[in-house]
């Protein structure tokens, strides 16, 4: 069953930058994990956070990374360290692909197939 509806009014987007940080509980909720899952990965150095007033605070880029870790661990039953290594490689590949696209665009080449 599919329904469609339009929402014509403009939704204001809130920019979650370095000054709008997530709590540990926020991050756990967004990633559908228990707070203990976040703490364990924080202690293992797989996620980065700042400590403000004795509480952990996470930047929005960490939300993207934490979601990726959770998905990799769940889908592949992956060890957290292995999931983090994979996430590192995914981030590195994305960065290099972006550089490649930029260079190809600058040289007037089309995108590579695939």
């Amino acid at each position, binding site marked *: 069953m599919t329904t469609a509806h339009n929402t014509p009014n403009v939704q*204001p*987007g809130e920019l*979650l930058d370095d*000054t709008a940080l997530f709590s540990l509980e926020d991050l756990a909720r967004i990633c559908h994990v228990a707070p203990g899952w976040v703490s364990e990965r924080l202690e293992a150095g797989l996620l980065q956070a700042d400590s403000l007033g004795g509480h952990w605070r996470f930047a929005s880029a960490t939300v993207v990374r934490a*979601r*990726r870790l959770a998905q*990799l661990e769940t889908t*592949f*039953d992956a060890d957290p360290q292995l999931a983090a290594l994979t996430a590192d490689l995914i981030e590195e590949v994305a960065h290099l692909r*972006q550089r490649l696209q930029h260079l190809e665009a600058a040289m007037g080449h089309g995108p590579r197939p695939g």
Partner: protein
Amino acid sequence: MEFKDYYQVLGVSKTATADDIKKAYRKLARKYHPDVSKEADAAARMAEVNEANAVLSDPEKREAYDALGRQAPHRPGQDFRPPPNWDAGFEFSDGAGTAGGPDGEFSDFFEQLFGRHARAQRAQSHYREAPRDAEWGGTPQPSRGNDHHARIELDLLDAYQGAERSLTLRGARLDDAGRMVHEQRNLQVKIPKGVREGQLIRLTGQGSPGTGGAPAGDLFLEVQFKPDPRWRAIDRDVYQPVAVAPWEAELGAVIEVHTPAGALEVTVPAHWKSARKLRLKGRGIPAATPGDLYLELSVALPPAHSDAERAAYTAMAKAFPRFDPRATPGA
């Protein structure tokens, strides 16, 4: 509603062991996982594979599904209605350990068969802490709606100026009867100035509706910039290639450059050095502490088409008799 052959989806036989199913699932997840897949329909295939795995990796669901197949054999894609009380006599636990992933969505077919268990399953996947959802006639507890996530592509200029974008998002929710309803909606979104690659934009209350009076979830948009030969951003800093003429590079000049921050007059210092960058402080992506704009200068040689143009190059060669462009190793 279409019948789904979960064995066919995973590419395993009906006698496949739990290990066979796990291997097949991981192989397909490797192929269709959104972070690694290059397949065009990866998201849809991943959802299908997740669903098949959710049923076949759970002994209770698999047993009921197999029994259904024996009661009412169907081919994949064939119109299907589950027989009344098809699951009578089967006992389902909460389905822990069978979740497809944080964003798992299930088809009408799955929802018709396992819908009332699916809600409990989504609330209790391996790591989840959400309060238990309605189970076997229990009273639903107030529960905040799920957050949604989507990636959007913007132009770098949007980060400088802010923008209004029309987004079409596809999603799914459970209706009051516990059935999955697929939805498509259009959102007009105001993109704030100063957005950076990888940053999240939150649209409060645009996720799934909450239950029992609890608030709706939020929609998080992850920003990516479209590739643009004119410029690229790294964090808040922006890099822009700028070609200069040989005489501008060596003698220095004031040139006009069209940057994301607008047209600017820039002084190119005399005496060209390769890989030279000019930093325009504070002309990167706007923020309380804005980024910088780096102009990456390269020398463009004018093509010599006419006799006069060729003569100019000849005169240049005569003017620099000791110039050896290959004097530098590797040049």
